[in-house]
């Protein structure tokens, strides 16, 4: 007779662990598929900027004159730091240190909020320089691209705070941390997009 494992409700399961696709957590795979599609979304926005780059750089104001590289570098460091706190949070839940997991989650959300505050300041300064959504090609391409990234960060902060609240009810622990891991994947992707935007738009 084939070796079987009896399910808690009486269903027979194969004794050997599933392999290949069936062994994967479908929520995690779904998040990766979403992130793959989001790559194309952000690439389309970056492509629009680059296709119109010659016009943008010929216009007034010149992007390199109004974009503060040093200030944006600080924002990049903040987002990189939030990626570190995110993995430390996940590691905390994985070793069943719920307090550490929650504290690092909260730290990640705070760093995300700091980033959003910096981005709001940057948008405000740009508006003073005359760069708005209706001011021309540079304003449209730049603000829509960075604005969508900021929206992703905002959604991420809300998600992290939700995880923090749920973790307070004992929902996440060493046996159940998938919710935090999926939120972390999303958060790291937001960092990944900023790596691309910072290099391609601000530095080049």
């Amino acid at each position, binding site marked *: 007779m084939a070796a079987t494992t009896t*399910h808690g409700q009486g269903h027979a399961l194969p004794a050997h662990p599933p392999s290949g696709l069936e062994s994967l957590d479908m929520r995690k*795979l779904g998040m990766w598929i979403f992130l793959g599609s989001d790559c194309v979304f952000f690439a389309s926005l970056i492509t629009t900027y680059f296709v119109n780059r010659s016009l943008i750089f010929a216009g007034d104001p010149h992007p390199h004159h109004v974009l503060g*590289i040093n200030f944006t570098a600080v924002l990049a460091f903040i987002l990189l730091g939030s990626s570190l706190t995110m993995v430390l949070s996940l590691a905390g839940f994985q070793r069943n240190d719920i307090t550490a997991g929650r504290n690092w989650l909260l730290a990640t959300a705070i760093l995300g909020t700091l980033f959003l505050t910096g981005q709001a300041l940057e948008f405000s300064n740009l508006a003073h320089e005359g760069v708005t959504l209706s001011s021309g090609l540079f304003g449209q391409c730049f603000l829509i691209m960075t604005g969508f990234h900021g929206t992703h960060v905002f959604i991420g902060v809300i998600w992290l705070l939700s995880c923090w609240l749920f973790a307070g009810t004992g929902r996440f622990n060493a046996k159940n941390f998938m919710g935090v891991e999926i939120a972390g994947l999303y958060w790291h992707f937001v960092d990944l997009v900023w790596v691309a935007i910072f290099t391609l738009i601000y*530095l080049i």
Partner: protein
Amino acid sequence: MSATHQATHSSASHDAHGAHDTHAHPSTRTYINIFGVLFLVTAAEVVAAQALPLVGLASLVVPSLLIMAVVKGAMIMMYYMHLKSDSAWFTVPMAFGLILAAGMLISMIGLFIGSPRVACTPELGKGCVAAAAK
């Protein structure tokens, strides 16, 4: 006697995914080291973007920045997003998205890079449309 044993298969234990689709994740020390490298590479990017043109090496700015950005992105995906230790199946959708994204960026830039671009201002009027269509 058949090799049969009781197993509780609640949703909570199903959430404990570590058994099949992942291997051990990096240690806390590794995470901190990776952050140190990411921090240094980002600082190097900022310095390179501003200093290389000043010393007559402006042609190196774009390739050096692209290489550093790719290194940063790869490190984030491999270590922080655990693609290095997780099942290779998770890499497939991300790789597909990245290839599509890079293909779109490169092909569109290649398509437009030699084309004259005309700003469509109200002053140009219909002339702008005609010029842009050429």
